[in-house]
């Protein structure tokens, strides 16, 4: 059973499929916001298959093993993280106490692999890109963690499943989490490296950032990992900040789809209506705006704890 849930549902296969669907929705809505037609539904899958068939080029200076292994590590980390995120019910596939911290650490592995990938490629653009990945990591990681710590303090649990269960029990407490939700969405946008926080792979500045030297199959898996991240983050936010679940499997799953798609649409809209910030503006924004807001959230939840 465990191997099934790791490989098929809700593990790798489901996540990969759902990720490509999300990439399609993201691209389609982005295009429609710009009055374009947008890609057909099979475009992300076609892109993936096409990349699989392309030649893999490894730079001479790069360490070959590390270069080829990093995409696999990223995909593995994201898939593992998803196993502990509640989907159709408050109970995740593999919950354990303290899984929230593990999920966040696993998600931190992604930018770290991006950084190593860029650094290992030893090209100028990818080096600059990976520097920016790391700089940005220090900016969004703290507010993202703090925004999730608020609910954790209130519920007195470090497990996503238990947090979700608590809020289903006492749904009114979820309203206190509004500032945290805003922080999480914006920090999540930074984590997913999307406009306005796409400095690490700013196309017009540093080509493809850390992935400049990647091609073929390794690149396909990096893209897949990013698509999966695009699912995992909305799933976490949906579980913690929008505690609407159902005992019925099908209704629960439909609710999961609705929740994640709504969050995705917000992320897409932010991408469509802003210009890219410079890295130092991004860091400033995170520390001057997001961190105080997240602190406020923690403060609110500390007071709310008295109401339980």
């Amino acid at each position, binding site marked *: 059973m465990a191997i099934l849930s790791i490989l098929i549902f809700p593990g790798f296969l489901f996540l990969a499929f759902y990720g490509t669907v999300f990439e399609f929705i993201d691209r389609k809505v982005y295009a429609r*916001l*710009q*009055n*374009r037609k947008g890609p057909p539904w099979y475009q992300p899958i076609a892109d993936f298959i096409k990349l699989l068939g392309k030649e893999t080029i490894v730079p001479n200076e790069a360490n070959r093993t590390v270069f080829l292994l990093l995409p696999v590590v990223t995909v593995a980390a994201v898939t593992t993280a998803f196993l502990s995120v509640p989907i159709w019910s408050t109970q995740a596939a593999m919950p354990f106490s303290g899984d929230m911290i593990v999920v966040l650490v696993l998600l931190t592995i992604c930018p770290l692999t991006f950084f190593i990938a860029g650094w290992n490629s030893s090209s*100028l653009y990818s080096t*600059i890109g990976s520097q920016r990945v790391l700089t940005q990591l220090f900016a969004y990681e703290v507010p993202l963690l703090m925004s999730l710590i608020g609910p954790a303090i209130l519920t007195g649990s470090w497990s996503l499943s238990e947090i979700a269960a608590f809020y289903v029990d006492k749904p009114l407490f979820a309203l206190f989490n509004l500032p945290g939700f805003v922080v999480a969405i914006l920090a999540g946008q930074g984590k997913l490296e999307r*406009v*306005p926080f*796409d*400095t690490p792979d*700013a*196309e*017009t*500045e540093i*080509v493809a950032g850390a992935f400049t030297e990647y091609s073929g199959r390794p690149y396909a898996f990096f893209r897949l990992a990013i698509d999966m991240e695009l699912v995992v983050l909305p799933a976490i936010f949906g579980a913690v900040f929008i505690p609407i679940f159902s005992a019925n499997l099908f209704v629960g799953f439909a609710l999961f789809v609705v929740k994640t798609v709504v969050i995705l649409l917000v992320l897409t809209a932010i991408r*469509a*209506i*802003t*210009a*890219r*910030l*410079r*890295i*130092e*503006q991004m860091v400033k924004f995170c520390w001057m705006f997001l961190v105080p807001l997240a602190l406020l959230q923690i403060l609110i939840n500390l007071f709310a704890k008295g109401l339980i």
Partner: protein
Amino acid sequence: MAKVTIPLGPQHPALKEPANFALSLDGERIIGAAVNLGYNHRGIEKACESRNYTQTLYLIERICGICSHSHSTAFARAVEEVAGVEVPIRAEWIRTLVAELERLHSHMLWLGVAGHELGFDTLFMVSWRDRELVLDLLSKITGNRVNYGVNKLGGVRCDITQEHIDLIKPVLDQLDESIKYYIELVTNERTLAARMLGVGTLNYDDAVAYGASGPVARAAGVNRDTRRDDPYAAYPEIPFNVIIDDHADVYGRAVVRALELVESVKIIRFILDNLPDGPLETRVPRRIPEGEAFSRYEAPRGEDVHYIKGNGTDKPERVKVRAPTMANAASVALMLQGSYLADVPIIVAAIDPCFSCTDRTISVVDYSSGREGTLDWQALRKYSIDWYRSQGIAFDDLSRRM
């Protein structure tokens, strides 16, 4: 972090054409920059000398894909001056009309490119969508979207009929609305302002000293516009404002271009309402007499300068073109100093560069001896064959190696 020098270009996604910027970096800050042009030398001036004037006109029109009418009008005016031909007034007004339509689509193109360089693709798409309206108009009036082929020596090839006027007017109303929106957007969007205000500054004195022209100079407060200072075509009779801004940065350049869109629409309306009647062309002899002429033209990107020398035959003796980017390229090095690496694309894009139009002459420098000179075709060919041979690639047995 140690100082590093990185080459930006000749191939880089931010550059639509090959050019090279050698940037000395201290972390993300630029402490020195050098501009190297000349990757796209096409030998156009030399090619002009082996064609007759009619053929040259079309070659000149193809110097630039965006401001093609600017180049061909500047050239035609110079030739007409040498030939001593008076262009009919209606032809002058039609030239001006097409010139202003061209300015409209060029500035809208710039707005989109600027949005794209800043990662604001929605602005890019919306502005280019509206630009299509102008291109469709040009296509309907002249028969092509770019390289309109409106000019002929001594006049114009196409007439503006009442039908055309009825086509243009509703589009102008549509454009008015979207231009108003752009101005509001560019001046009020916080993320755009964050990336444009105080970026790539070029103050008044430097703009004058470096000979900047067009919107780059006007954004630095330099009150200079060839349309008013040395009026040509129909401009002496058309009222319009020269847009000046004192931000002296990328933001100022965006504002100048956005407001110039408004002026262009006004000029087009004025032309449509006051188009004089008359013939479309004066005959120009095939053989242009001896003499030289110098023609100035306010292209969308800045001042375009053409020089023609005739020698009594049907081919020009010498044609010299100085595209507006040549005037602005030097100031880019100054603008880049002290800015962030992330700002390079928008600073370069803010002069609305057209490097292929600019690359006229090259001089070859021998690295070992430092000698400077020119190579003729045979020598250049021999050099390239020898160079490839030194790399182990011989072209005579290339088929076998591949």
